[in-house]
């Protein structure tokens, strides 16, 4: 029996390893010295780590000593938010304890939860809303950022709807008020051009597994002379900013993943955009009563979020899965909670639509044939679900 077709369209969740990264990981497995050791084994490991750091730094227009490796995007984001609340006397950001945080209503859960925690500890946190396309509402944002603001954190590209923010303008507003600016660029780095100086950010988070690197490795950009306070203490690694023996294999693999992005990103993202637009057009013409969520142009090339009236997201996801197609949903039922996606709701789409939202996120291994197969299967799945739905009156 022929192997059933399996197509991965969930590249914003994570990505398959780039073949070159795989090779690099295999050879990096031979490097076992502790990068902190002075002997030749240590020095060998150190040189690999520093080479990777150079790749990361160069790719985002930073200098190497501004890059700190972390174990995940979530760790990076938590680290940056935690500097606002440290009460240690020695901490550089200590003076900012009484200052406020401004973020948005569509951040990744790690920023949402970390900011909620800061709020519970007594810090003032403001959430800037977004418009129907998921763009931060500038006027409102301007009002929220004041002389009391210590830090502003706005994600560069949204993981669910793909909308890309105008980070340069936002950071300009923050700096004009004397606030620091952080961007969670986990979904942006390696998909769209990112240059920390163009963007004018003080902190930036990126992650390996979203760009064909392995899980468990990420990096944070910390602008030179920015105040900083470690989240993980107890070692001199990463210039004393993050304790713990370096994840040599992960770091080397991240360096390679980024090196490959530097070579392939521009061409490949053009291809992803073409596929996305073909998918958008295909859905628009074959399925009635749908809503595209996310900015039509300022958006990640491979991300398309669609909500289907009268069809619940988890059911769509699982029927597609049975046909070998892997996607994700903003429905409550799939998340284990009872609330649908906070991002979809923040764009103003009603709750009943949020339950029917599906995210397609394309990656380097997808082809136009995958899109054709999806466009063959999807209308049938939606028709089938709507056929048994109380929430969809057939309009034929």
């Amino acid at each position, binding site marked *: 029996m022929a192997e059933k077709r399996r197509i991965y369209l969930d590249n914003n969740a994570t990505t398959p390893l780039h073949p070159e990264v795989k090779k690099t990981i295999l050879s990096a497995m031979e490097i076992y010295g502790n990068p902190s050791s002075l002997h030749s084994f240590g020095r060998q490991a150190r040189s690999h780590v520093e080479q990777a750091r150079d790749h990361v730094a160069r790719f985002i227009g930073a200098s190497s000593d501004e890059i700190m490796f972390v174990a995940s995007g979530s760790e990076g984001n938590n680290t940056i938010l935690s500097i606002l609340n440290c009460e240690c006397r020695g901490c550089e950001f200590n003076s900012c304890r009484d200052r406020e945080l401004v973020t948005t209503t569509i951040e990744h859960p790690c920023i949402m939860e970390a900011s909620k925690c800061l709020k519970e500890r007594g810090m003032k946190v403001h959430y800037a809303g977004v418009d129907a396309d998921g763009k931060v509402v500038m006027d409102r944002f301007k009002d929220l950022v004041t002389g009391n603001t210590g830090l502003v954190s706005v994600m560069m590209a949204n993981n669910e709807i793909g909308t890309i923010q105008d980070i340069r303008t936002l950071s300009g507003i923050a700096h004009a008020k004397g606030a620091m600016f952080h961007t969670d660029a986990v979904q942006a780095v390696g998909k769209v051009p990112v240059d920390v100086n163009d963007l004018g950010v003080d902190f930036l988070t990126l992650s390996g597994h979203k760009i064909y690197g392995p899980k468990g490795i990420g990096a944070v950009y910390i602008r030179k002379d920015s105040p900083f306070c470690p989240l993980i203490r107890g070692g001199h690694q990463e210039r004393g900013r993050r304790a713990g023996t370096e994840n040599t294999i992960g770091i080397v693999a991240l360096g390679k993943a980024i090196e490959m992005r530097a070579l392939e990103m521009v061409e490949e993202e053009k291809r992803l955009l073409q596929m996305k637009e073909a998918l958008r057009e295909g859905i628009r013409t074959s399925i009635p009563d749908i809503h595209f969520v996310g900015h039509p142009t300022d958006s990640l090339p491979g991300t398309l979020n669609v909500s289907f009236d009268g069809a619940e997201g988890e059911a769509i996801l699982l029927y597609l899965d049975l046909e070998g197609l892997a996607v994700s949903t903003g429905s*409550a*039922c799939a998340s284990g909670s*009872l609330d649908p996606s906070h991002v979809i709701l923040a764009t103003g789409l009603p709750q009943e639509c949020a339950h029917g939202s599906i995210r397609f996120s394309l990656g380097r291994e997808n082809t136009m044939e995958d899109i054709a197969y999806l466009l063959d299967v999807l209308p049938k799945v939606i028709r089938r679900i709507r056929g048994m739905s109380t929430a969809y009156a057939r309009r034929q």
Partner: protein
Amino acid sequence: MELTNWAYTDKVLDHFMHPKNILEDEKAYKEDGRGITGNIKCGDQMLVVIQVDKAKDVITDCKWKTFGCASAIASTSVLSEMVRGMKIEDAYKLSPKDITKELGGLPEHKIHCSVLGDKALRAAINDYYLRNGMEDKVRTEEARIVCSCMNITDHEIEEAVLEGARTFYELQEKTKVGTVCGECKDDVLRLLEFYKNKHFCNIEEAMPAKTPA
């Protein structure tokens, strides 16, 4: 297709892949009773229609429609099979637990998806009674689900009041009632007043009016 490690049992998967007794042509179906429950804002809603052999008091057919996830679809599908040929009084007694058991279990966070099916069925049976002049048989449930989002019953509200909850907020803290769509708030406030009076005042009051599910 590799389907190992599904969160769902084979039975759930089977009913999801091949749902039984979908109400395809609503207009043509000659129903003896109809019940609908749930809310599309909360992400699930179910409609159940039944045909009854009036001489024998037996449900001869049951069809349904569901807006919801895989476990909601499977729950209504399996329910429609369970009640065919069942005495109407027995069908009335079906609980979410019976449905979950028939499905071989559901993940814990999915249990609330199964509670709407039996509720819709009871609504359909009540509707059947009403249509056939048997108002006396219409029963409100012993434990009635007040908040269908969090699957909270009037019994749990009563317990919480006995444990000291005196405001809607305190009830929310204790039971999570009304923390999702909030549609049940008025209902909960009525129950709160009633149980406060029942247990902590000497005022005798009738049970608050219950609407058929």
